[in-house]
């Protein structure tokens, strides 16, 4: 009995980690762009496009890492469009973000139909993301297979990378020159400008990086959690990541906690589903979304976003 309970807990933690990972990548992307003062609700579209590019890249190259890189590039390219619209042409950031969402999901399906004989999903990739700690688990190894340790810690490489990235982005934002400049631009671009910091360059960099991270988030879904891209794969995860970023008060560590919370809802949903609890699966599937609304309504009112968020920076007559 006790052993089964521990195993159940291990299962929930394990699935939580797995499902949190795509959200962590994407909400880190959100943190980077919004800290520079540019709202990016196009994360969903970038994530979707990245998920497709990741799966397609991994399918054709037969190497998940190449897929992972493709996802980063795809997300970054889409974000470049957002940067051009919002930074260079001072477009309304929400409108551009909505357009990017349509474009990302649309382009993913369109290219998928072209490459995979009219199918809205890619074929199954031959090699998923590796499990870097797999050698520790199994018969005669350090830990037994399917034990608590295996369930929790024997995870895809993307999971570990995501956690490393949280630390890295935190370090860059708060301890380095470039991070300080990003935050300054997000709080008061006029001030940064008078000190000779290029608001345009910083914002371009930040927006593109947000796309790269959203792309990685998508790939963490399509080449690790599952092994192909399909048109319903992302369905709202980009928005949940956005909510996680806000809930996490625009901080990498805060976003991490929020993503784990949302991932946890998914973990519980899967666990209950697997246990055959007499609740319809559809109801269970709502859990993460309900949680998003509850969290946003209940908590977000008290957070302070970056000072210049969403505001267009007009350098005016500047030389």
């Amino acid at each position, binding site marked *: 009995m006790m052993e089964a309970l521990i195993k159940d807990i291990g299962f929930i933690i394990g699935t939580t980690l797995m499902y949190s990972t795509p959200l962590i990548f994407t909400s880190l992307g959100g943190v980077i762009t919004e800290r520079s003062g540019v709202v990016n609700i196009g994360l969903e579209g970038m994530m979707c496009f990245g998920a497709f590019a990741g799966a397609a890249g991994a399918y054709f190259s037969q190497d998940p890492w190449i897929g992972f890189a493709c996802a980063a590039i795809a997300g970054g390219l889409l974000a470049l469009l957002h940067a051009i619209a919002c930074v260079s042409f001072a477009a309304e950031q929400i409108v551009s973000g909505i357009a990017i969402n349509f474009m990302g999901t649309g382009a993913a399906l369109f290219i998928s139909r072209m490459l995979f004989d009219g199918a809205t999903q890619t074929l199954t990739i031959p090699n998923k993301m590796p499990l870097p700690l797999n050698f520790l688990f199994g018969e005669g190894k350090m830990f037994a297979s399917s034990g608590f340790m295996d369930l929790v810690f024997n995870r895809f490489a993307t999971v570990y990378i995501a956690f490393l990235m949280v630390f890295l982005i935190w370090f860059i934002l708060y*301890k380095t020159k470039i991070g300080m400049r990003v935050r300054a631009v997000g709080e008061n671009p006029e001030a940064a400008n008078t000190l000779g910091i290029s608001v345009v360059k910083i914002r371009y960099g930040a927006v593109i990086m947000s796309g790269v991270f959203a792309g990685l988030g998508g790939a963490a879904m399509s080449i690790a959690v599952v092994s192909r891209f399909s048109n319903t794969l992302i369905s709202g995860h980009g928005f949940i990541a956005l909510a996680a970023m806000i809930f996490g008060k625009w901080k990498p560590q805060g976003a991490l906690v929020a993503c784990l919370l949302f991932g946890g809802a998914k973990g519980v949903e899967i666990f209950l589903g697997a246990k055959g609890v007499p609740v319809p699966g559809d109801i269970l599937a709502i859990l993460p979304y309900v949680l998003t609304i509850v969290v946003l309504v209940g908590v977000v009112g008290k957070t302070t976003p970056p000072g210049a968020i969403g505001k267009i920076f007009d350098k005016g007559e500047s030389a």
Partner: protein
Amino acid sequence: MDALALSRHPLWGWGYSDPTTLFGGVKCLETIDFFHKAVEMTDMVKKFGDFTANDKINLIVHKGEVHALLGENGAGKTTLMNVLYGLYKPTSGSVKINGNLLNIKDPNVAIKNGIGMVHQHFMLVEPFTVTQNIILGNETTKSMGIIDLKKAEKQVAELSKRYGLTVDPNALVQDLSVGSQQRVEILKALYRGAQILILDEPTAVLTPQEIQELAQIIQNLTREGKSIIIITHKLKEIKQMADFCTIIRRGKHIDTVEVAKVTEEDLASKMVGRDVIFKVAKEKQLRGDKALEIKNLVVQDARGLPVVNNLSLELHKGEILGIAGIDGNGQKELIEAVTGLRKVKSGTVSVQGKNITNLSPGKIINKHKISHIPEDRQKRGLIFEFDIAENLILETYFKPAFSKWFTLIKERIYSNAKDLIHKFDIRPEESEIPAKALSGGNQQKMIIAREVSNEPEILIAAQPTRGLDVGAIEYVHEALINQRNQGKAVLLVSFELDEVINVSDRIAVIFEGKIVGIVDAQDADEKQIGLMMAGGTE
């Protein structure tokens, strides 16, 4: 008090306008190296579309000189300095720094050539610390771009000690007073090795004491051979701080004068282009009955702290009661409480014996006849996108004069606008242009027209002349005195002590949400009021 102690007194020099009595009798001119032109701007032209903001302006500033740029709002002073700092690209003209012809294409070039600028609206990142703000863009780093905060803090502390700019390097900028924030801005420029320092309206937000400190800082800087350019429209401070003054009117260079050789009146008429009356004419008048009574008022701010703290005050008919005080001592909340914009925690506000505490603004305006000229005319005074006629009926649109059933009567609204535009001299004389297209002075005239035409018994004016030029200030003061002469009660809140003393009949000094003293304007002593504003006792 001995001479040394006196010279260290923060109020030293306050109220003096003869520069020879300032700085212990040392004339500033002594620090100037007339053989070294730090800045030489020749025939500067800057156009924005069809509008010429700078029309062939010349400016020479020597090493060690304090040079004032004087002009009304919109005269082109700040534009000229933004060109010098590389924020605007000049249409034509040349800039020499220390004798070298330069193309200052962005602030980086300006910074590299020793030019620093303190903007009127501070360019600070509020959630950052003092040190972070100072090093931003020019960071002290270890390897790999990692910031060396310890070292930077030490540098900042040394710099602040050297120039007497006291500020805590670890404090968050958002927690600092305005005066301290200004010191951070000056440190920012000095940290970048500024030799030429531009100060845009540096005294607009300072208390009298802080202005004295600034004068001292400026003196320290010129002693080190730095040149200072002060943009201002305050004549008193030019007399106090500057050696030379260049006057700009409507983008044109009018004159450059040695400050010691001209009077404030000379400067003012050069600035405006006509003679200006400084002291508002005001006949004596007997104080009438009690119009507004505030008793033990407590008002909280957003954080739940009592910013108006057990305040009591009486306002009578036929008087202007001025409230003197430093920004942030509860003035804003007091006014909001009286006008119904903010909930009163405890205490009462009554108008002619009737309790109006916590009534809705609509009732207070129309039933109890209190009109309000708000502090922030752009946010609260006007609807920017609405035209003049619409802005003029914001309080009365529902009255039979302007509406019938559910519809507005357009003709009456526009004929009303026509009358008021004429009567209150609002320019341009067109009722259909949006409020945002008007100059600050005309926006204020529009608000005054609306509030006064609603025939209030009590008029509350919060910072009514903020950001206005001399001509518009004159107008506003006359309007307030007019109301008083008609037997109405006027409550004037201003951070400009001169204004309060000049216009009011009685002066109440507010400090930390309490009235700490009431004096008759005739016997008002600036020094004494200044001390009370800072919470000091005599």
